[in-house]
């Protein structure tokens, strides 16, 4: 036998047994589960014990009339939400209003039409069901919102309170849309001074331009060393990592920094100390070899002389290396300030050429310099050091009979000569494109064996870059494999000392 699940549980409260029986049998026939009582108080108790889905309530009853029963039910949490339909012979408007005021949802007048009663019951049951559905959906939604809010708060807290500075910027402009407290305290800026501004607008130091061009390549970045110029003008060393994130369909760059200023300071201090400790024994070593090589302390065999020369050559290389390390460290840490003065570029170019002429002659390289007479506000010694370094590299990496050329050209901006570009071109083996940037880093040579074969220290270009940047200029290289390379330096002609 098929089990039929009752459609709904209906409580009928009426003091007239005939009405009660009629309604009961009629509803039962339609599949409703019916409970019928003749007294209001019994009805209330029944509804409290087991709340029905709907109540049909007679208005005219002794002891407690329908309105009173309704008010009782509406005052109780357990029964408040049960829809109540009044059934009464009274049919004035004020009776009906009273019924609705008491909390009824509908009003049926006797004598009633069966079909009308059923239709109204159906309507109110459906309404109630929809109401319940709405309520539970609402609760579910509220719960979801609470959970989401919780998750959001959790991640917002991680972002806000991360000990690592974090920033989110647009691509490709590099405009800040979100930064955390650590970022602000590291950079020294206030939130208002950062949000909406681009990396270029904030003047975050000389590494910004290179960083912006890397931002446009859409490649993630891992631990890029970046010298950050803070609001107060101090420089902090940071390691920067970047990846892309999508927010509302837009792609942004998520940057996380790591302040390594203190670590760098210790590192530099260490380099300085080591350099000093290395020089003292080298003084004795170099001196001993020099004195030996005079022959005044006894003559050496040819092989003995050869061994001595090896000793001298390598001691000299060690000294160069220590000098370069110390030089670089001091320029980087700002311990050496550029002593800028008005100077003629042509003289500096000539001086550098003169210094390198003998090296070029030894390697059978033709050195061609086209000096440009133009006044420059710069540290002459440091500019000569830079040019010498570039010429020395060009000569080192050229074959015999090749030409190394140095020339310069003034650059104009708004009809005014604002800067000068000095270029050193060789016909050497060239530099692979992927190394054109890194060669300006410390100990980055195209070929690791270069340091031994060419006598370089791997620090020359890093020193050049630091000197050029201290002059607010820039240095870069262009190259074609097996055709040659050109190193360019651009220097502003007249910049105010910082």
């Amino acid at each position, binding site marked *: 036998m098929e089990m039929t699940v009752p459609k709904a549980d209906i409580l009928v409260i009426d003091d007239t047994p005939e009405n009660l029986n009629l309604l009961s049998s009629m509803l039962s026939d339609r599949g409703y589960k019916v409970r019928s009582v003749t007294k209001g108080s019994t009805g209330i108790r029944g509804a409290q014990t087991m709340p029905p889905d709907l109540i049909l309530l007679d208005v005219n009853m002794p002891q407690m009339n329908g309105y009173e029963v309704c008010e009782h039910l509406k005052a109780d949490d357990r029964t408040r939400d049960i829809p109540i339909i009044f059934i009464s012979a009274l049919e004035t408007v004020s009776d009906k209003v009273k019924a609705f005021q008491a909390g009824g949802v509908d009003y049926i007048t006797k004598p009633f039409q069966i079909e009308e009663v059923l239709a109204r019951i159906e309507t109110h049951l459906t309404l109630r069901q929809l109401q319940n559905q709405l309520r539970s959906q609402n609760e579910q939604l509220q719960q979801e919102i609470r959970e989401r809010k919780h998750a959001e708060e959790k991640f917002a807290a991680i972002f806000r309170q991360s000990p690592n500075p974090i920033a989110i910027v647009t691509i490709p402009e590099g405009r800040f849309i979100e930064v955390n407290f650590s970022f602000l305290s590291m950079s020294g800026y206030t939130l208002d001074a950062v949000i909406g501004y681009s990396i270029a607008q904030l003047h975050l130091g000389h590494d910004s331009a290179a960083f912006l061009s890397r931002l446009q390549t859409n490649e993630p970045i891992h631990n890029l060393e970046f010298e950050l110029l803070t609001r107060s003008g101090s420089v902090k060393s940071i390691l920067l990592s970047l990846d892309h994130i999508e927010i509302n369909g837009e792609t942004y760059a998520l940057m996380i920094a790591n302040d390594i200023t203190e670590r760098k300071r210790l590192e530099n201090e260490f380099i300085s100390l080591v350099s000093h400790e290395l*020089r*003292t024994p*080298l003084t004795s070593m*170099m*001196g*001993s070899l020099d*004195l030996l090589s*005079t022959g005044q302390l006894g003559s050496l065999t040819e092989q003995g002389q050869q061994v001595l020369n090896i000793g001298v050559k390598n001691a000299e290389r060690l000294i160069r290396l220590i000098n370069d390390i110390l030089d670089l460290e*001091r320029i980087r840490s700002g311990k050496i300030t550029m002593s800028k003065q008005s100077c003629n570029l042509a003289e500096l170019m000539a001086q550098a050429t003169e210094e390198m002429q003998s090296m070029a002659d030894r390697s059978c390289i033709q050195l061609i310099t086209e000096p440009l007479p133009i006044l420059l506000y710069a540290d002459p010694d440091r500019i000569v050091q830079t040019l010498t370094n570039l010429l020395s590299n060009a000569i080192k990496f050229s074959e015999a009979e090749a030409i190394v050329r140095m020339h310069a050209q003034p650059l104009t901006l708004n009809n005014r000569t604002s800067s000068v570009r000095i270029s050193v071109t060789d016909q050497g083996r060239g530099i692979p494109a992927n190394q054109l940037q890194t060669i300006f880093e410390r100990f980055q040579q195209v070929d690791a064996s270069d340091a031994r074969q060419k006598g370089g220290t791997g620090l020359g270009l890093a020193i050049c870059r630091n000197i050029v940047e201290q002059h607010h200029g820039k240095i870069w290289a262009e190259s074609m494999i097996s055709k040659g390379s050109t190193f360019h330096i651009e220097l502003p002609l007249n910049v105010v000392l910082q």
Partner: protein
Amino acid sequence: MKKQILIVDDEDDVRAIATLGLQMGAGWTVLTASSGAEGIAIAAQHQPDAILLDLMMPDMDGRATLQQLKQYPVTQSIPVILMTAKMQLSEQRSFNDLEVAAVFTKPFRPLTLAQQIIDVLTWV
């Protein structure tokens, strides 16, 4: 003309090399001291033609030694040349305030040391 030079340096080997260099390179007489205090005493006693003074020494460093040398009437007119391993050539400006004739960086070439001294002190 034969000169007498005082070398003040706490490093035995550096003293020995400089001594040999000046003797072999120019035939000068060399006096040595391994500390600032000893250097001052020898300078006062022998009145050398010049003093090569190491900057970094324990106890009394080059600066302190120089200060004292410049205080005593018997030593104050002796030219002093500072020697340092901690400095780059480009930093010589930072010694402009000191009353020194010159600053030499280490490592130095022993055989040309005498000529360097002659150059900076403009000895004929």
